[in-house]
């Protein structure tokens, strides 16, 4: 098959999959967006810390926590206007952890609502439940 025919068949497959937004595009951009957001936050946080203190050393542990408490505490701090380099770095880590989690959640809804494939809705549901459970661990 030549390339234009390939492109044509791919486009056809895409439009059959329901509109312009198929699962591959959706997942691809969730992963890309999440990682870029995380890297931008980490880089900004580190640079800000360096500008303020003149060194890069930044050593703090997150107290034993789970992802949801961690995200809630960070958002609370951001809303209270207490912006610091450390907060940006914590938000960067949170964005990174939420990236694959969001990917699984969106896939589950896609299989359930768009493809109406119950088998894969159950599979992604199992993955989502195990992840949610593990992210609630403390």
């Amino acid at each position, binding site marked *: 098959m030549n390339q234009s025919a390939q492109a044509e068949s791919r486009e056809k497959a895409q439009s059959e999959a329901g509109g312009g937004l198929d699962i591959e595009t959706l997942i691809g*951009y969730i992963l890309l967006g999440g990682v870029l957001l995380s890297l931008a936050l*980490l880089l900004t946080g580190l640079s800000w810390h360096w500008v303020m203190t003149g060194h890069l050393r930044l050593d703090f542990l997150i107290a034993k926590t789970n992802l949801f408490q961690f995200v809630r505490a960070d958002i609370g701090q951001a809303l209270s206007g207490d912006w610091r380099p450390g907060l940006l*770095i914590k938000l960067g880590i949170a964005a990174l952890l939420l990236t694959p989690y969001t990917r699984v959640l969106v896939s589950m809804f896609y299989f359930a609502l768009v493809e109406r494939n119950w088998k894969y809705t159950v*599979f992604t549901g199992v993955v989502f439940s195990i992840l949610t459970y*593990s992210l609630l661990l403390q």
Partner: protein
Amino acid sequence: MSTELLFLISLVAGFIGAMSGMGGGVVLIPALTFFGMDIKHAIAVSIVSVIATSSGAASAYVRDRITNLKVGMFLEMFTITGALVGAAITLAAAQRPLFIMFGLVLLGAWVALFLRRDAMPQAFTRQDAFTRWLELEGQYDDQAAQQTVSYHGRRAYFGGPLMFGAGLIAGLLGIGAGALKVLVIDLVMGLPSKVSTTTSNLIIGVTALAGTSVYLAAGLINPGLAAPVILGVVIGALIGTRLLVRLTNRAVRLFFLIVLAVLGVEMLLRGIRGGL
């Protein structure tokens, strides 16, 4: 350890990891422990960085429609369970067995790399009923060969449980364990190697997230240390991916065989001798 040194180590680890296709963790963890970081903290920081490199690479492969999402989502059920068990074992384990395990996995990877043939011919066997029920098949455009490749998976009943083991090692040692995942998808389930590597890449992200959740709950994640490591590994991996096309395969392979052997023996000896 200074942030600058941490960044530099991660940059080199990400670079070697991408160039060899083995991921950053296998170099990162031995190097961090060599410079005095506790192995459990090194494992925890490494597994967070694995999420970044895996998701970054997967985003491109998924959009190129080479990754088989159904294969990925079926196998993820097994790898995340394995990763949770693996990470829990690490928390409970003493340091020395972790060094020994890491050394053994590196030497195992050495053997796999040494024995690897470039293209593994796939003998066609009939697709079993379970794999057909799972809809594990697909096609992708091979741009180099300018053709569409169709394929059917097989033996999913065997591949799934094996992936539990790959996930266990990933969670236990804080690495992607991509080589192991590729081995299962490629050899056991019979998918083309391009599909195996890209699908393994997608699975690595959620598997690492499951492992991370355990280390987060244990208070082992240090954002101040994780930030330069994540940035370093990702930038190193980007450079490594760019350079990969310019080096001959043989040079990369030989280089990595040496790196794996040195790191494997070193980790093993540190575990056996104690005095970490």
